[in-house]
């Protein structure tokens, strides 16, 4: 469904993994592999495209990229003739592969909670089949200040802990606008909760950061006092305020769900007044209206390609948003927020070329290097360069071409999706002899 995004208030019903999708998780696939792809067009993102190039991965890391690469004997080699090799795609906004609830909706400020990974969600496999190798799994958008997120690699077949992308930022979800206010404004009068308006959302953020600053000061005073007075009274520990002080110190990065230009500007000003930074605006559908302000604050933006008109605050969403924000110096990613779009994130990036004529590789950055920056993993992934992780997607054609399909997806040098071995419709259909039974 196009309209439903993961940020609805509903708790997701979780499916059962079936044999149809659970084909990739065999022990041999999880073993370390050295591999090379040769004779391919390599879209490095870092240094343009390499025609007829070779990429070599050893011990899970990229060890060589170029036209003059020697492939050691015994290394599995994929012939990339006619194919396009690019960094594994990164989805900067997803609620897939989570369980036990997406929204802690009881209160509007809950940064002390954290989402839980469902490592056997078939969406992980399907994301791999679309070339996606990493994602930010966010709390929902019911709360002004929601819960903490997880950054994962799509290590299909491994445990939830093993999927965690080590070294990534700690990230917390904020939310503005209709999702935060609607939960109350449409509820019976005796079940409503503050805030019900954008005005109330602004106050909620100010109120809690004032408390956080006081809490931070209390602890600072205690830590100073205890140096000279062993009997100094320790303040009462508060996990909610502790998370907020982490934001003040920059240890916990704010990713804020937002739609309208006014609320984006509001959060920027509240953040500046209270001494914290909005790291990335999520959705940010009217980001193009305040792109200069976003850029000046130093925030990044992760948006939808073409979603609009599904609710009032999405009425001014335009597909030129990506191009306009990029031109104004904002680091832009395009995300899925959906079990469906995560399967074809490359197409979503290409919308940025169709609308506003973004340079092709700038558009591809929106699903590689730019989301890597937003997740704090750009030193490890997001480009094809020596020393980076062996996270790679191999396409049958240029990812923006109409016949482009993912043939291999590689994570840490392991081939976790391989079209030739996948359980495809064609394989099943060939057995049914034209469909009559």
């Amino acid at each position, binding site marked *: 469904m196009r309209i439903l995004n993961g940020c609805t208030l509903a708790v997701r019903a979780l*499916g*059962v993994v079936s044999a149809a999708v659970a084909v990739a998780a065999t022990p041999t696939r999880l073993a370390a592999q050295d591999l090379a792809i040769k004779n391919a067009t390599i879209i490095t993102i870092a240094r343009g495209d390499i025609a007829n190039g070779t990429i070599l991965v050893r011990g899970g890391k990229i060890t060589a990229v170029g036209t003059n690469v020697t492939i050691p004997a015994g290394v599995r080699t994929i012939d990339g003739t006619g194919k396009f090799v690019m960094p594994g795609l990164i989805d900067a906004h997803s609620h897939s592969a989570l369980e036990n609830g997406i929204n802690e909706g009881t209160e509007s400020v809950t940064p002390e909670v954290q989402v839980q990974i469902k490592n056997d969600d078939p969406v992980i496999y*399907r994301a791999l089949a679309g070339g996606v190798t990493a994602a930010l799994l966010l709390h929902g958008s019911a709360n002004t200040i929601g819960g903490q997120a997880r950054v994962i690699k799509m290590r299909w077949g491994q445990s939830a802990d093993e999927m965690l992308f080590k070294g990534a930022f700690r990230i917390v979800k904020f939310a503005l606008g209709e999702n935060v206010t609607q939960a109350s404004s449409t509820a019976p009068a005796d079940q409503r909760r503050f805030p019900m308006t954008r005005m109330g959302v602004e106050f909620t953020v100010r109120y809690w950061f004032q408390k956080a600053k006081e809490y931070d000061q209390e602890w600072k005073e205690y830590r100073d006092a205890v140096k000279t007075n062993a009997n100094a009274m320790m303040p009462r520990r508060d996990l909610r305020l502790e998370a907020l002080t982490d934001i003040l110190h920059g240890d916990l990065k704010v990713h804020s769900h937002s739609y309208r230009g006014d609320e984006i500007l509001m959060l920027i000003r509240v953040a500046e007044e209270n001494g914290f930074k909005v790291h990335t605006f999520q959705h940010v559908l009217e980001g193009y209206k305040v792109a200069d302000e976003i850029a000046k604050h130093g925030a990044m933006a992760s948006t939808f390609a073409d*979603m609009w*008109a599904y609710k009032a605050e999405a009425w001014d969403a335009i597909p030129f948003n990506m191009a306009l924000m990029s031109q104004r110096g904002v680091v832009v990613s395009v995300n899925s927020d959906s079990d469906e779009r995560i399967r074809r994130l490359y197409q979503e990036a290409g919308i940025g070329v*169709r609308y506003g004529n973004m340079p092709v590789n700038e558009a591809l950055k929106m699903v590689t290097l730019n989301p890597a920056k937003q997740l704090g993993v750009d030193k490890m992934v997001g480009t094809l360069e020596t020393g980076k992780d062996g996270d790679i997607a191999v396409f049958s054609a240029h990812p923006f*071409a109409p*016949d482009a399909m993912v043939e291999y997806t590689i994570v840490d040098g392991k081939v976790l999706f391989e079209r030739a071995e*996948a359980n495809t419709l064609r394989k099943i259909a060939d057995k049914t002899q*034209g469909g009559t039974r």
Partner: protein
Amino acid sequence: MHLKTKHLALFVATALVAASATNAAAQAGAGDEGTFFIKGGTVVNPGGQKMPNTNILVRNNRIVEMGPAAQPADAKVIDATGKYIYPGMIDANTGLGLGEVGGVQTMGLRTEMGEFNPHIRALVGLNVESELLGVTRMNGVTSAITSPTGGVISGQAALINTAGWTWEDLSVAKSAGMVINLPGSGGGGRGGGRGGRGGAAASPTLVADFERFMTESKEYNTARASGSAKLDLIYEAMRPLLNKQIPAIITANGEANIRAAVAFGEKWGIRVVISGASEAWKVRKFLADKKIPLILGSLESAPGDDVPYDEIYAQPGLLYEAGVKFAFSTGAGSNARHVAFHAALAMAYGLPSDGALKALTIWPAEIFGVEKEIGSIEKGKLANFFITTGDPMDLRTQVVEVFIKGRMLADDDRHSRLYAKYKSRPLPIKP
């Protein structure tokens, strides 16, 4: 539109001189209704060879000359040298013009009260100023089915152009088909209930009521044909369906529902188009033998947990090979403009390029009996086409101009307006 003249100038300065002449001709509203001579472009028609260096003369809404035609003195000239001209694309299931902002209930009036509404007509409820129509046409989608929803018989779908002055002006087929949801067909096949728009709920009473409604409609039709019945607006609305003048558009997902829809058509002697059609690949030979056409539900759908990951993308290729005729659809309206990208997904997973073009143009025209009017670029047809820098299924392609009913459209859609406004916001003053 994205590389239309004024934007083109911002990106490609060298093209400015040639392009500005065409922009002067484009007007707001329903477009400039002049005589146009589009010269030097490569025409790409479904099922045909590319036709390089083909001139097109447009007059009074229609294509009046094609080929090496000479340039008349009164025509506005559009230079399409180096560019491609494609027939306008058709989205075969939308709610275009019937709804605006999804979350605002009063802005979307697509579902009438009651179960049996053959007398309800989409066309008369259309808002020609819908912002959704504007953004749709600017990406080359020049026609669409727009349909009512809900109940067992939702009402009559219309086939419309996406630009025009009134709903009459928009209309290509006032009544293109009767939208029917068979009782008990809700939910679809095994694919996790991916049903597109609404199969009806199961209820023994509803099944019996529907049977009686069909029987009475048939009796009325016979009586009217012999001049022995008084006019009844509701049963009267069933006559074009029963007389095979229009097809039933039956929502059916999953093998059982698809077979039930075909059987329904055979029982009552009516033509059937299957809409949704998930898992149609399982009965593709059956559908080809019966010559049942399909309106595929949105390819931008997540599959059920127990099917191959590529089922939704790969199905059109299998249907094509089996000889089943089908059209693409987006189902809603806000992104009807991107129906070509649904076709691109199908191409990646096995549908040949020409099959994709057919399913976006001539096949939906044939399915709804308007192939003499739209669906390809031919002399005598409505001038519904668009000029591009390349394959419209390729995301890198830019749409340069759009013609609907012989009118050249301006960049006046909501998104182009906002783009132009904010692109021209002055840069901040450097301190």
